[in-house]
């Protein structure tokens, strides 16, 4: 037993994240018998990448931030104040927490016509394709699973998410949910092909799907190397996460939140954050491909933590800029969005592929 524990500690200690700033504290904690396992686990690189940063902990903070930020920004654009009274000193920053708690404690209704097991399981199952890409997204030395095919894998998992949403609509067995599912499937076809072609163009450009090679080759940000792919990826990101110009599957004025119409309580809380989490994963990929990933000025004291911090900061800035789009534009009709997706959007992505292949040969 003790030998086993020592073996585990040895494995954990062999791959520790190094942060000079907190090194004295870690050194003192590692002497205490039980606490040392915990500290070693948290500072173990794969665990740190998946659970702390840029993984689940940052994801939770990001969810609180982005919901508050979107509401506040929309309010400011409409000359309102937005959430405020809940915490005046913080400008209402914990509003999303109150909404989440309310959903958590509310009654979760499963209506009679629903396919009961799938209706309850699918919101939880949908988290698998949303959260798995985080294991493959590296931030400098902090990485969950290191593989040269990371970008391809991330794209593959992102492509799985709409299937769960369509299944959610099917399990709801309601007319609005059905219409929403069909719209989701149509939009999926419209954005997914240009999106994948844009990613392939960047892989051609860098010559590899390995994030480390991708970052190494970006002597200037990838957005300048292939602006067309940048544009296509940006629009595909808006379409894939149901942001407002393409909020077609969830149009709440027409079809009452589409696939999610029958969900209530904690189940709705789960499905509502799906799009936000998808946005986070896609924005991480966006940052790695186009914004130079984790490269940035290094602070010696932070050590290995520099890379995740830069990655998260760049991602949050990108997402905040996308949030402005949401509060400013009106919604396209489904036929307009589909016509766009199948005509010039697709053509633009093919053009981006040609440019990517050409520049890839040059550099």
């Amino acid at each position: 037993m003790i030998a086993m524990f020592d073996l585990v500690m040895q494995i954990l200690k062999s791959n520790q994240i190094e942060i000079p700033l907190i090194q004295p504290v870690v050194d003192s904690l590692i002497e205490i018998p039980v606490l040392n396992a915990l500290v070693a686990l948290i500072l173990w690189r794969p665990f740190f990448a998946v659970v702390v940063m840029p993984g689940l902990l940052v994801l939770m903070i990001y969810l609180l931030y982005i919901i508050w930020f979107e509401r506040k920004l929309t309010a400011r654009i409409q000359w309102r104040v937005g959430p405020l009274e809940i915490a005046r000193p913080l400008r209402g920053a914990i509003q999303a927490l109150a909404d989440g708690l309310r959903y958590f404690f509310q009654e979760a209704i499963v209506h009679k016509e629903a396919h009961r097991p799938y209706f309850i399981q699918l919101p939880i199952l949908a988290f698998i394709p949303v959260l798995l890409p985080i294991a493959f997204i590296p931030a400098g030395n902090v990485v969950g699973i290191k593989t040269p095919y990371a970008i391809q894998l991330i794209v593959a998992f992102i492509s799985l998410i709409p299937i769960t949403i369509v299944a959610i609509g099917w399990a709801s067995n309601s007319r609005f949910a059905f219409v929403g599912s069909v719209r989701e499937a149509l939009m999926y076809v419209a954005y997914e092909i240009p999106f994948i072609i844009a990613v392939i163009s960047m892989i051609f450009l860098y010559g590899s799907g390995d994030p480390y090679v991708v970052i190494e080759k970006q002597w200037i940000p990838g957005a300048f190397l292939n602006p067309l792919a940048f544009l296509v990826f940006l629009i595909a990101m808006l379409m894939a996460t149901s942001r407002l110009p393409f909020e077609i599957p969830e149009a709440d004025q027409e079809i009452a939140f589409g696939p999610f119409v029958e969900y209530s309580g904690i189940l709705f809380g789960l499905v509502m954050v799906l799009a936000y989490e998808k946005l986070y994963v896609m924005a991480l990929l966006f940052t790695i491909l186009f914004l130079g990933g984790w490269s940035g000025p290094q602070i010696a004291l932070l050590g290995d933590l520099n890379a995740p911090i830069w990655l998260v900061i760049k991602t949050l800035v990108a997402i905040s800029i996308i949030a402005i789009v949401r509060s400013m534009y009106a919604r396209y009709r489904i036929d307009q969005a589909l016509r766009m997706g199948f005509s010039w959007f697709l053509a633009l992505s093919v053009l981006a592929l040609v440019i990517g292949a050409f520049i890839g040969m040059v550099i």
Partner: protein
Amino acid sequence: MDDFTKFIHSGKLAPLKKWGTKWSLWPVHLVTACCGAELAHAFASGYDGERIGALNYGIARQTNFIIVEGAITRKMARVLRITWEQMPDPKFVIVMGACGLNGGIFWNGYNLVKPSEVVPVEFFIPGCPPTPEALLRGIRQLQKKLETGEAESSVDFYDLRLQKGKIPKMLPKSPKRISENPLIIVNRAKEVDWAFGKELCEKLKALKLESVVITAKNRIAVKVSESNLKETAIELKKLGFDHVKSVNVIDVPAENKFIVEYHISSYSNKDLMPVIVNLFTEIPRKEAKVSSLADIFPSADYMEREMHDFFGVEFKGNPWKGKFLLAPDTPEFPLRKDFKLQEEIYVGD
């Protein structure tokens, strides 16, 4: 499961639940009357209800709060009840406006329901319509209730003191004379300079009619017996009249009759376009039956159904039976003069 529910309601996590619910009261859109404009104002840039955590939302399933805006009719009561039942617990209802309180300007109407009889109501906000400040105050009051567990009125009434020696204000006098049996004349003749109308009258007089009278310029009143109504309508159609503008029933209980009017006009014939012919007949009140013109003028169909709802006049030949516009539980024939409204019951000293 009951233990779990009890734990959630009053266990150690209850303060968290109360806090979350207090700051996240999302009203569902259920606009029935003009108070909706004030609700929009309360959530727009001037007052901004989102400050206190209230966000207007689409559907009942994902919200926890209903603001009943104004009058609830018998048909809308069903919608209100369904919305309330679709909503997950815990849920709250606020009624705004005088109509929701006790009817307001529709007080004692045959088609009005009090929201408090349909769903449990937390707070009433009086006013016609209430100001946005009053609405937001109601929401704040609900938040206070969630926090402390006690409902209290936010209005301070001041005491009225009796003053001696003051002359009471004169009340407005009642109308001088109310006619027991008012005379209703549909075809009062009037002299007008209208050559085409006189020509038309000559044409109409050739038919089997009781009287043809010009009541104003472009207006002709034609009285027929009930048995002749359909034939006259066919003859009018041959003249170029092609649609019914409205169907109207007048209840005259003193003379024990209904007057059924068809206002007939034309879209296809240019000369007849401004002309409206009032084709009317009188039928006894007890056997209120008249032949339908829906097969000759299809536009009469819906209006005949409506008149059947309101007056109980049976249109022979119109296949519709039962209630068309009114809710199924409305008392029968509410527009008849002898219809008795439900009396208000007051409990107190």
